[in-house]
Structures are given as structure tokens and as C-alpha cells.
């Protein structure tokens, strides 16, 4: 947890990274106490955590490497299917399911990354979205294994055994929330460490000026490839958690429209801020939840969020606290 607070914000302009981190963790740790009072429910907070993790993992690329993937739903969905298939066919073990999810999504990302890393700009986005649809297509057509259009059902997360202690994450929402939060803490802690490491600094250098980084002898393609793979692993972890949350994995979780939603979460929250995507995910998930309960035309409103953010709010919620180079 402390690791996450060693965020790269010092390099990107936020005045008080420790303060931001303290506020974020104070809010996250106390969610089950104050959320019901505001009319929310714990599962909603769990969804915020999962999509927050996905958006932060995606932002390793967009915000901190400077390349734009529009196919991250594929790795999110593969993580979900990896976890679901493991629980259904192999063993009723939650840690094993998570591991399988990370492996499936991470390996696919690492492999696809080989084809993708040479592209830049919109072409990077275009190739990532096309590669992402391969995963969607496979899950959609491989009926016998994945349940096809209807999605993968018939699995359930299993209780956690920590030595003599058994955590009932199956029936108790709050315990499950704290389990998710612990995984989230480890993942974002690792991300913080990564960005603070020489490797992370190199990624920032590539983002700021690719040509100069290349002249300094940095193997740019290899760094982008590694960043892509790492980002896919974390996104797959988020997907695996999503499958555990819903006890369900569906092909729409792989579809490129979800990729777009992950991108808007990161941008809406502030892609240059470490916690920005989490803030964006919170706002997006809550808005989507509220709007879809009020109108069947929620798609228009989601689209409107996209348009309004792009036109009037391009630096995002945490971006307005930052000085520097919003384009």
C-alpha cells in the first residue's frame, strides 16, 4: 500500500502526491461504511475498484508511455474468461483462477504486442482494436467452451483459505470488497514501484520525446512492448476480478466498446495523474449505473459523456490540479 504512494506524480506535476494517496486510501478503506448512507451498494464500489484497476493499468500505456491502445477490453475479457474457465473446469480455487486469468490475458497481450509495437498514433489504436476483436471473435464463436453469445456461466468464486483462517468471500459482500481492495493495493503498489523505477522513467522519456530517447540508445520498441505486456497483465487481473465479482464472463466484456469505455475513464479522470483513471472509473461507473436505471437511452448519455469530456474537459478531473503540458 505504501508503495503506491511512491507515485510518479512528482514528475508529472501534482503538488502533493502523498496527500492525494492518503485521501484515496482513506476513501477506499471506509467505503462499506459511508457508501450505504449515500444510497450506494457495496457491489458498486467493487465495480469501481475493478474498472479503476483496468483503467490505471491501461493508463500505464496512454499516460505513462504515450501510446494509445484501443483494444484493452480484449485482455480484460481474456482475464475474465481465464478465471471463469479455471473455476468451472479445473479447480475451485480463487487464487488459481486469478493467476490463470493474468496468464491468459498477459500472454495474449505479449504475443499481439509483437505485431503492434512498431505502429504509432492512430495506427497503433487501429491495429490494437483489430487485434482485440480476435479475442472477442474467438470467445463468441467457440460455443462449446465459452458459452458463445450467452457468456460463460456455471462457476462461482471459492472461499479463500489462508492457513487456518477461511475468508468467506463468496457470500459476504464486505469481505469480498476488502479482498478486492487488497489485490488492488498490491497491483497499484507494483504499478507505482514500476513507474518510479529506472524502467518507468525510461517510459516517461519515450512519452516525452521518442526520438531523443532513441538517440540516447534506448531500445524504444522493446520498452513499448514490455510496457504493453505489463499493462495487459494488470488489465487481465482486473478482468479476472470482474469474473469473480459477477460469477460470469461474457463476450461483451471483450468487445471494443468496452475498450473505449476504459479509455474514457482514464481520460476523464486525468491520464497524467497516477490516481486519475481511478477517479474517472468511479465517476463513469456511478454515472452509468444511475443513467441506465433512469432511461433506456443510456447509450446516448454515455456517448454524450465522451463528447463533453473531449470538448470541455480534456485534462480530466485530477488534471485540473496539475500544472504543465495538457495538449
Amino acid at each position, binding site marked *: 500500500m505504501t508503495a503506491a504512494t511512491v507515485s510518479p506524480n512528482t514528475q508529472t506535476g501534482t503538488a502533493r502526491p502523498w496527500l492525494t494517496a492518503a485521501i484515496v486510501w482513506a476513501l477506499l478503506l471506509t467505503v462499506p461504511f459511508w457508501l450505504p448512507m449515500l444510497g450506494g451498494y457495496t457491489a458498486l464500489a467493487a465495480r469501481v475498484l475493478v474498472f479503476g484497476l483496468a483503467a490505471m493499468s491501461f493508463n500505464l500505456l*496512454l499516460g505513462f508511455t504515450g501510446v*494509445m491502445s*484501443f483494444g484493452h477490453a480484449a485482455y480484460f475479457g481474456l482475464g475474465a474468461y481465464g478465471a471463469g474457465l479455471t473455476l468451472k473446469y479445473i479447480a475451485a480455487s480463487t487464487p488459481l483462477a486469478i493467476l490463470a486469468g493474468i496468464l491468459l490475458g498477459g500472454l495474449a497481450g505479449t504475443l499481439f504486442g509483437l*505485431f503492434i509495437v*512498431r*505502429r*504509432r*498514433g*492512430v*495506427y497503433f*489504436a*487501429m*491495429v490494437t*482494436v*483489430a487485434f482485440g*476483436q*480476435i479475442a472477442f*471473435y*474467438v470467445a463468441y*464463436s467457440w460455443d462449446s467452451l465459452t458459452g458463445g453469445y450467452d457468456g460463460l456461466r456455471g462457476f462461482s468464486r471459492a472461499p479463500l483459505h489462508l492457513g487456518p483462517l477461511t475468508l468467506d468471500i463468496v457470500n459476504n459482500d464486505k469481505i469480498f470488497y476488502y479482498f478486492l481492495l487488497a489485490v488492488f493495493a498490491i497491483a497499484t503498489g507494483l504499478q507505482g514501484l514500476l513507474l518510479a523505477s529506472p524502467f518507468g522513467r525510461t517510459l516517461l522519456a519515450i512519452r516525452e520525446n521518442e526520438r531523443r530517447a532513441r538517440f540516447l540508445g534506448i531500445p524504444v520498441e522493446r520498452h513499448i512492448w514490455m510496457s504493453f505486456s505489463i499493462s495487459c497483465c494488470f488489465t487481465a487481473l482486473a478482468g479476472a476480478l470482474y469474473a469473480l465479482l459477477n460469477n460470469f464472463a461474457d463476450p461483451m466484456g471483450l468487445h*471494443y*466498446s468496452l475498450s*473505449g469505455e476504459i*479509455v*474514457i475513464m482514464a*481520460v476523464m479522470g486525468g491520464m497524467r495523474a497516477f490516481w486519475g483513471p481511478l477517479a474517472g472509473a468511479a465517476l463513469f461507473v456511478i454515472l452509468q449505473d444511475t443513467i441506465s436505471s433512469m432511461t433506456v*437511452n443510456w*447509450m*446516448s448519455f*454515455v*456517448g*454524450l*459523456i*465522451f*463528447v463533453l*469530456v*473531449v*470538448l470541455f474537459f*480534456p485534462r480530466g478531473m485530477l488534471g485540473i490540479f496539475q500544472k504543465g503540458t495538457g*495538449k
Partner: protein
Amino acid sequence: MLQLVLFNVTNGLIIGAFYVLMALGLSLILNLSNVINFAHGNFLALGGYIAFVLTPFIGFWGALLVSPILTAVFGFLIERVLIRRVYARDPVYSLLLTFGLAFIMQDACRYIWGPNGLPMTIPDGLAAPISPDLFFITWYRIFMVAIVIGAVAGLFAFLRYTRVGIRIRAGTLDLDTVAALGVNVGMLRSFNFAVGSLLAGLAGVLAAGQIGLNPNMGDDLLMPSFIAIIVGGVGSLTGTLLGGLLIGVAGALTTVFWPAASEAVIYVIMLLVLIVRPRGLLGEEGMMT
């Protein structure tokens, strides 16, 4: 067996023709404005619905002519009001903008015309098969292919011989220089966007006559169109044309032998092309990087 193969090749050509119309429009916009129009499939649907509304008044032939033009006008306005605002910014914003636009347009079509499919009436002469033996080939299918060939030829002639077309091609290569020569680049991009929308609208009318209308009728065409552009090579319209036909026919032929893989094959083609020739079939070196 011969009939089956013939049936699927015809199908492939027609599907390929739709890929080509979509992908050429996308490609035009991408090349000149560096924008991927995620809403392009929704422009197609809009073209179809406009034709559906107009047909009772001006007939199928009138709608075929007027609907693409109205779609182009709509595209022109969208570009003027929304898309031009983000040209100077990081490309992520233009993607998000067209993405949001796709959501809104799809929902709007659903709201106005309902979520269920609607039939589109085409003239009786076109609905008839060309002969009893070839009962699966209607005149409409021949007609579609002819129209697409005409539209593509028209587009290439426009880009080759008209002043605006030449400026569009020049702008694709070096927009700054074109601007320095005194061309109104903003208007050029708007017009170019309108041409792309026109092609989508035309595809929409033709598709409506074949498969009817529904709010997400363009969605299934979007991803193959991306792949047609990647396979053909970014920056080359001829490449896009070739890519669209290639994946259309390959998909249809695969249907004959292994129906389940008919969609997978276009992704396999993309992978192979990216391995063997990363810039795409006719792409120029360095365009995609």
C-alpha cells in the same frame, strides 16, 4: 458444388464491395485528417434510414440518389461542428469523440425507428433472379456490384482529375505545404469528410435493400473495414480497395469449406500480411509508424 462455390463467390464479392465502400471512406478521412471515424458504421445506417424515409415519396431510385447526399451533408456538419475542434490535439481525443458519436447515433436511430429490423422495398425488376438456374443471384446483387464499381471509379476519377481531388491527395502527403500554398485546408478536410460520409451513405442504401434496416447494421462492417485498410496498406486507396475485395472473397470462400472459420480468416489474413509485409500490401514505407 459449382453452384455452391459460385453462390459464395458472388456473396463474397458483394460483401467485399461493402467493405470497400466503408473502408474507402474511412481511409480518405484517416489519410487526410488522421482521424479514425468509429461512427462510420452509423453513417452507413443513417444513409439506409434516410432512404427508408424518402422511398415512399421519391421512390427507390430517388432515394438512392438523395440519401447519400444528405448523409454527406450530415457528415459535413458533424466535421464542422465537432471533429475539427480536436485536430490540433492528441489523437486519443478524436478517437473518443467519434466513439461517443457512434453511441449517440446508434441510440438515436433506435429511438427514432425502433430497435427491430425494418424492411426496405426495392423495385420488382431488381428483386427477380437473373435466371431459374442461378436463382440465388438476383438482379439487385448485380446492380449493387455495378453501383459500387461505378462509385469507386467515380471516386478515383474525382481524386485524379478534379482540382479538389488533387488537393486532397496532396494534403494526404503533406498538409502543411498544401496550406502554405493557399488552400483552405479546413474546408478541404470538411469536404473530404463529406465524401467519406457519402460513400457510407451509399453503402447504407444498398445494404438496406439487401438485408433490411436495423440500428446497428453498420457495426459488423466496421472491423472488417479496419482490417481492409491495414491489409491494403495505410495511405493507399488502391490498397484499401484490394484489401476489401481480398478479405470479402476469402471470407466467402472459407464459408464453402469451413463455415465456422469464415470470419476468422480475415484476421488470419491480417496476421499474415503484418508478418510478411508490415506496411500492408500497397502501403508506403513509414506511413503506419
